[in-house]
């Protein structure tokens, strides 16, 4: 299996990560996919260019009926970051959790996005429900989902400047105005 050789090349003992069959199928179909296991949950690190196709593949061929969640992580100020052999870590990670009801299994796909170009294809055409999730991720992190039908802010006001969940967008940046002390009567 391709995944085992990847891990062997990275110096990891073979069998350290019991390859999940869906993860293995994704790795076999999409080159440069890294299979990982995080606390018993199968995770695939996929290339940015394959993001949309992986979602399509999971839905159409692996019967993953639902995408539960698309979100983003900003790793700007991590003091220590878990190293996954073979993955070139970047500042942003876009994370999608998939669930297959007929096969009763889950898989998580993660894609690394560089800080200077946080752009990834939208999967809202494959999983319609991810419309709001991607809008929220755009709103909070400024990650642009290309091909999204309506990529506007979801939670913050439309005229808001900045993306609040980014690590360099500090809370308390906006001065809070208090009313003046009541005048002596």
């Amino acid at each position, binding site marked *: 299996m391709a995944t085992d050789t990847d891990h062997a090349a990275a110096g990891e003992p073979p069998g350290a990560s019991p390859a999940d069959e869906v993860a293995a199928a994704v790795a076999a179909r999409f080159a440069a996919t890294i299979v990982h296991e995080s606390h018993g949950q199968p995770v695939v690190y996929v290339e940015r260019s394959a993001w949309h196709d992986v979602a399509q593949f999971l839905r159409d061929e692996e019967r993953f009926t639902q995408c539960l969640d698309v979100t983003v992580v900003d*790793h700007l100020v*991590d003091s220590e970051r878990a190293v996954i052999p073979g993955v070139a870590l970047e500042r942003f990670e876009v994370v999608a959790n998939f669930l297959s009801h007929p096969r009763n299994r889950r898989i998580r796909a993660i894609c690394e996005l560089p800080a200077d170009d946080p752009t990834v294809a939208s999967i809202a055409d494959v999983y319609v429900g991810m419309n709001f999730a991607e809008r929220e991720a755009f709103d909070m992190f400024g990650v642009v989902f290309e091909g999204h039908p309506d990529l506007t802010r979801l*939670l913050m006001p*439309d005229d808001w400047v900045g993306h609040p*969940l980014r690590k360099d967008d500090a809370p308390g940046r906006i001065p809070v105005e208090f009313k003046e002390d009541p005048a002596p009567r």
Partner: protein
Amino acid sequence: MSEPIKVSPPEEARLEAQTDEGAQQLQPKRHEVVTGGLWPEDDDTMIINMGPQHPSTHGVLRVMLELDAETVLQAKPVIGYLHTGMEKTGEELTYVQGATNVTRMDYLSPLANELVFSMAVEQLLDLEMPPRATWIRMLLVELNRMSSHLLFQATNGMDVGAVSMMVYGWRERELTLRFLEKITGLRMNHNFIRPGGVAADLPDGWQHDAEELCRTVEQGVREYSDLLSENPIFIERLMGVGTISTEDALALGVTGPILRATGFPWDLRKAQPYLAYDEVDFDVMYGRNGDCYDRFRLRLDEILESIKIVRQCIDAMPLGDYRVQDRKVTPPPRARIDESMEALIHHFKLFTEGFRVPPGETYASVESPRGEIGCYLVSDGTGKPVRLHIRGPSLYNLQSLGTIAVGGMVSDAVAIISSLDPIMGETDR
């Protein structure tokens, strides 16, 4: 006189794209006619804002409705009015404090939030819960499911005109909350389920109180059923209203009672058992038509299933520790603090700095009263998470409003919003 400012077409398109919250989608459509040119402005449809201060929108939900007389042509939920940045706050709090934050998201099922957060932290720490902690958690979460569904019965009844249901539903819910208060000390926002177990052991005599509560709620459910299930007005308002197919529900990310009401018996408690759900006997309720009535009926039946689980918790509650005896996450016992300086320092450090969690990422999920609530947690080895993301079921359930409400009446939209049972605190976080 000054010339009117001319806007070039691309500029116009850009401005239009900036229009408030995607409102351009709902702008009146201008049709080209065969004789050439555009049809004069179409006055048949109008756009109405329902909410954010509408009593039937359960808080601060705003729905933009495009109406043709009474018929809904388009519905677009606009959210964010209750956005308080809880995910950002979660990054500022230690893992010990984290539960106080997440419990406020879905304020009708706070214990499910605490549970999913604690489970995520425990996965990162590789902690195994003692059986009593697991069963106490299960007891609490099921009681919480009861109270949440009881409130649904109250508000759903009131939204469609059965106003007396408001009183009945709150009555039983208040009893449930009183029992939860007895265990946790608070009616809501308990912060009782914490990483490493629960905050305290069950009080003496809880079995008796729980049994009495079960009996009362059971009787209440029977009353609601008598009052509503066969009520012709109620049936007229709900049956066949707001239908959604299983396929649409799955595609839209809908989970929980709304998905089950479409005839898809998917419940994480059965499918991917967590806590001790594989050791108790209960049935997964599911509907057939996926309409408002099925969603009402299903939640009513789920209360009875929860009572079943609570009764089994009373009978089979194991003895032992209610939290792990791992000193890394559990403070020393109160008595030790009086006699040992080290224990005092340990206690102090744990509650000021918290504990460190090894770097990694995980996703935990449980079946909350509203569907699958998930917690995606990323740690960088310090005492605070890098990212705390809660997958709120209400967000996705509410998103489906744009599909469900189309084609119905405005008054149906009220019934549909009510039957989706959205919690804005969780939707906006």
